[in-house]
């Protein structure tokens, strides 16, 4: 399996307080990594560091750049616990404006279909529930193909059906060779058998 990213002794310190230290991750093609731990353990910070949004204080991140650039896939898609959607735009418009390079509208319709949100296509986000907003946010996984997906607490606010759809989407991503890193509060062996659980 091709290596996508690895971290060596990654550490984060804020105001002399060590949030985490010596994180050694090895993310390979088609792998699901579940980073779990208690509140304040630094799961979101670690994900943001991997996404390149924030800086680590010590250690090393090695991005393997031998990705197939002939595809329209991007290196990373990050879905944070803020939904990154606009209240005054419709579900469809939010997804359309998040499309990075292509203007392929069919892919948006497909995503709305998969997440069973077609009926809310033209609804403003502010009129949707938190769970529905979360679904719209997670649809960006489908509309923005990437080699590596970094998803912060994907199961929060989702109902049973939403969780099922998300798991199926992740299964689909893994089968196409993408890697997924998620954060969670517990291990998730019962959902994906080959998950690598990493306690932080």
């Amino acid at each position: 399996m091709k290596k996508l990213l690895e971290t060596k002794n990654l550490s984060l310190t804020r105001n002399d307080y060590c949030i985490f230290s010596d994180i050694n991750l090895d993310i390979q093609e088609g792998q699901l990594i579940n980073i779990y731990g208690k509140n304040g353990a630094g799961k979101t910070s670690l994900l943001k560091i991997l996404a390149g949004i924030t800086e680590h204080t010590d250690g090393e991140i090695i991005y393997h750049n031998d990705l197939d650039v002939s595809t329209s896939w991007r290196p990373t898609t990050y879905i944070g616990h803020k939904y990154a959607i606009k209240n005054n735009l419709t579900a469809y418009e939010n997804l359309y404006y998040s499309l990075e390079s292509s203007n392929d509208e069919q892919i948006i319709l497909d995503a709305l279909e998969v997440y069973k949100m077609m009926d809310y296509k033209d609804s403003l986000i502010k009129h949707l529930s938190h769970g529905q907003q979360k679904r719209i946010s997670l649809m960006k996984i489908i509309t923005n193909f990437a080699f590596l997906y970094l998803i912060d607490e994907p199961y929060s606010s989702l109902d049973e059906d939403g969780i099922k759809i998300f798991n199926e989407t992740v299964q689909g991503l893994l089968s196409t060779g993408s890697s997924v890193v998620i954060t969670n509060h517990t291990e998730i062996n019962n959902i994906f058998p080959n998950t690598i659980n990493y306690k932080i």
Partner: protein
Amino acid sequence: MNYFTKTINKEFKIASRSGYESLMPVIYLFIIMIFFNISISYVSKNIILELLPLMIWISCLLICILNLETIFKEDFEDGTLDQFLIDDTNKEEGVTAKIVAHWLLSNLPVVIVAPLIAMLLGIDYHTSLILFFSLLIGTPTMSLLGSIAAALTVSLKRNKILMSIIVLPLYIPILIFGTSAVNNSYIGINYHSELLFMGVLFLVFLLIAPTICVKALKVSLD
């Protein structure tokens, strides 16, 4: 639709659904001018006419500072900024589109209305026209410059005062040349060099502000 137009289109769509918010700067300008006229109503008409274009200029500058915060704040709060910073798209292009959209929505209405107010209050057509041109060049420069301060302070909760402290000294050259062009026009002497200098300032900040903004946003989100 390319990324630049897509971003501007998106900002316009959001603004069009935000109700009266985009009218606020114009209403604010009207209110300031009413207050100004009330407070100096005892001064002779000639002095008022001389001060009026300058007061309008200062009012526009203050309005420009007041709405600077909105450039990146909403994107920061809803998480869009996080995604923007990791996207592969040209970040400078995205930031420029945001600043352009902000100027079109918040400052252009003021630029259009300000000379009309000046004429209503008795300023001659030519001076009002120069007021319009000086604001047309000056306000985008202020938006570009102000966007850097907005980016630097985006993650702070009460950032308005800090932002004003950062940008006000930097606005001094724009204010000096803007008011000087209007004043020169009023007293009938050459004002071209002032407008030219403002034009140069605008081009310089158009080139450097988006790049500095992207770096400032990264620092702020870290």
